[in-house]
């Protein structure tokens, strides 16, 4: 019997993505534990990680971290491939696309707070559109839009401030 040897080389970048994704998943769990008055209104703490990653390591890493977070978070919370998973995936995709565009805004004027608010709006917008197109094919879905938009503004601002605070500190030295 021959043993097949599959060599997986793990780069420093891989380790970094894994660590950051772990942090994001941890925050997703905290998010899920916070009682919410309305399904869909969540602080979205994991986005803090996305914002910090975007600023420190670029958009590609942010996409990796977010995708892993959605996948692992849904597995841990037990909604993998359930409607909530696709809502989460759509929201994350749209907010990443928005961040991809918004990060080109002049940094002198627009900081993490702007990015966070825009991403939060893209996130809830994507979720509402998917919910309208697939889960609840009726315009009644949009009835709660003002509530969701207000929540996006509030939580987007708070998350952006936390991300800005974290980014104001020097970057941690790479630990293996």
């Amino acid at each position, binding site marked *: 019997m021959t043993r097949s040897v599959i060599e997986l080389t793990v780069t420093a970048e891989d380790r970094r993505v894994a660590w950051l994704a772990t942090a994001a998943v941890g925050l997703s769990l905290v998010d899920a534990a916070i009682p919410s008055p309305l399904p869909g209104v969540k602080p979205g703490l994991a986005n803090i990680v996305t914002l910090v990653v975007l600023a420190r390591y670029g958009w590609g890493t942010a996409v990796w971290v977010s995708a892993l977070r959605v996948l692992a978070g849904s597995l841990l919370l037990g909604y993998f491939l359930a409607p909530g998973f696709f809502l989460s995936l759509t929201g994350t995709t749209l907010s990443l696309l928005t961040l991809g565009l918004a990060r080109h805004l002049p940094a002198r004027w627009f*900081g993490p707070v702007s990015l966070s608010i825009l991403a939060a709006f893209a996130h809830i917008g994507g979720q509402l559109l998917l919910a309208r197109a697939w889960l609840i094919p009726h315009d009644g879905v949009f009835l709660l839009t003002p509530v969701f938009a207000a929540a996006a503004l509030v939580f987007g601002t708070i998350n952006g401030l936390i991300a800005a605070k974290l980014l104001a500190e020097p970057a941690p030295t790479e630990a293996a």
Partner: protein
Amino acid sequence: MSWLALIRPGDWLVMLLSAAVVGASIPVFWVGGLADRAIIRQEGKVFAEVDLKVRKQFEVGGPLGTTLIAVEPGRARVVSDPGPRQYCVKQGWLMRPGEIAICAPNRVSIQIAGRTKVYDSISY
């Protein structure tokens, strides 16, 4: 380092614009608008149609007795009803267009109407 120092000038702009969008979204998405009128029916016939701008009480007679309805600016409710289960009383204040409280035993109902007609349910 204070939190305010973390907000850059453009961030204020984004916050302000977002707040404006949120404010503007309220009349767009809350179709049917605010509650305009209350329609009180007795035996299926319109007993009274009231603008929800005044403070007024109505005594509507039915087969069991008198149902007392209170109208206030922007809302209306059934105050008391001779019916046995008191469902319409327990519903409390009705504020949104399309909301309805039915006191079936006494054959009295009160419905809130807005500018546009809204459905209270749609099934597929």
